[in-house]
């Protein structure tokens, strides 16, 4: 008798629990989907580009405001994977210039350690996260095209970047994207750091010779998606 009772209790429980589950899924017929339609700027339910909705602390592609960069090299020393390369040079009058500030965003793990260490606030994360390129070497973002004088930090004066977040990275991404003709293949394919080394406080390895272009660079149509 007990077995018979169990048989029917089992049956009832199965049917009832399935009915309960079905009623939960049925309720989703009249509930709003949570999907965010991503690529369109006006996609439901944001109504504006996704980048603009990201919080202040979002760690996107690194960007450097050269107006307030003092060239202290802290960022490149802090970086655990050496994806930032900074070079300084002196001209004939002894004036120091920043000649190179490259960020290899194909290597960068967006950990934010460099940004925390930056004293002037010149290095920061942009809200840009999509940077598909026709050529992976273009992911080495070269922020300096002409030598810049480093910023001299005045004690007690808080330095603050005037440029809106993301504007610098967007500009550089646009410059490096789509394999423009006016950039020589040599320059384009120069890697940031040829040797693979672990970070810490080691001096960055010397920049190696230019890498030979892998192939004829194709003219890509992919936008920077910014």
């Amino acid at each position: 008798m007990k077995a018979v009772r169990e048989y029917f209790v089992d049956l009832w429980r199965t049917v009832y629990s399935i009915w309960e589950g079905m009623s939960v899924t049925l309720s989703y017929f009249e509930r709003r989907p949570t999907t965010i339609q991503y690529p369109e700027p006006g996609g439901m339910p944001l109504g504006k580009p996704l980048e603009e909705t990201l919080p202040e602390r979002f760690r996107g592609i690194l960007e450097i405001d050269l107006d307030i960069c003092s060239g202290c090299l802290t960022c490149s020393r802090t970086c655990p994977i050496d994806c930032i390369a900074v070079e300084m040079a002196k001209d004939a009058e002894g004036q120091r210039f920043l000649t190179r500030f490259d960020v290899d965003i194909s290597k960068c793990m967006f950990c934010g350690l460099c940004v925390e260490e930056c004293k002037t606030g010149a290095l920061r994360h942009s809200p840009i996260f999509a940077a598909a390129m026709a050529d992976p070497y273009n992911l080495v973002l070269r922020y300096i095209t002409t030598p810049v004088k480093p910023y001299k930090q005045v004690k007690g004066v808080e330095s603050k970047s005037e440029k809106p977040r993301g504007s610098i990275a967007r500009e550089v991404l646009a410059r490096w994207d789509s394999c423009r003709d006016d950039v020589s293949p040599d320059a384009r394919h120069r890697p940031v750091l040829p040797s693979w080394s672990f970070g810490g406080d080691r001096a960055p390895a010397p920049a190696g010779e230019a890498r030979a272009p892998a192939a004829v660079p194709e003219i890509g149509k992919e936008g920077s998606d910014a």
Partner: protein
Amino acid sequence: MMPEGMTSPDLVGLIERWVVSTLGLSGNWAPVVLLGAAGAVAAIMLTFVAVFAGPVTWVERRVAGRLQSRIGPNRVGPQGILQWLADGIKNLLKEDLIPEAADSLLFRLAPYLVFGGMFGAFVVLPFSAVGIAADLDIGIVYVLAITSIVVVGLIMSGWASNNKWSLLGGMRAAAQIVSYEVPTALALLVPVIISGSLSTQGIIRAQGAWPWEWNIAHSPLAFAAFFLYFVGALAEGNRTPFDIPEAESELVSGYNTEYSGFRFLAFAFAEWANLWIMSAVATTLFLGGWHVPGLEEIVGAMGAKVADTSVLYNLAGLVVFTAKSSLLVLMVIQVRWTLPRLRVDQLMSVSWKYLVPLSFVALVGTAAWMLAVVEVPALDVVARGLTFVAFAFLTVSGFLRARQNRILASEKRDWKWFI
């Protein structure tokens, strides 16, 4: 109900007669005309399968998306309605791969068997009063028999792929379909007993148009038989919760792992076709088929009689039938996206420990009930009323519970589907 000894009109017969009468052909042409008519009807049915199987994938994905709090495909065409075309074309353009180690002949043959088995069932699916390819006397038995060919195809594909996962999938499919034939067949016999006919049209004609005149409301046992059939058909069609032959988290993809291109599409086609078959058979046997509620009363009040071959009547029947079947299809889709999958041994125990005994009870009980109704005719009215009320209660309470679930999640009602 048709008088004894007369078969109801069917599409092949209609076309045949129409061709013969318009062209004035002699009797010698009969085989040719018959073949031509059958071919034409087969083409119509195949088109229907294609046109059903395509969009229903879109429907399923949209419904699944909604259930999962997302949107689903909405890019190809307005609201993604052309997604199925894109998928189909993509599959056609794929390379047709046959693994080197596969048994080439069987590997090629299997999709035909699977698709053929499923498609064969369309011969006896009635869409309206005349909208049936051929009204066989033994339509129900035919459906059971022809869909069993699918098993052969599934085993064949699993075996011929020369892949252990495919083989496991094929074996599972065989074990599952063979054991679920039993409860399904037994449950199908219940409406057969009630209607006294094995022909699909005969069973529909034996029912009325209103819900309380359907076979499902005949008695509590018929009500149970409907669900028994439904569960068994889910299992025969390899739908969740019985989709163990293609359990993607266990067997990668089961018997069709090694297939690509159009051969793979044939399996998918068969699966969607089967979705329609199971819903259509359930509608035919339990839910009153193509009867249009209220039509006979209205026409009768006007002093006329409904002609079986009337175009309007058939169109209305088609609409009603499609609506009922589509609702069942939606239910199957919802079940699929709600429930987890059973294990192989549990699958067997569900069949042999629960479904088979219960369908026997339903079968024998229905027979006894028929006798009892002859003695006490009032029983029939009471049972029909009660079953109908129970069915209505189940539906309404399900909706109310769903509403409660939404309120518990403190969400607003949102019926906007086209996003």
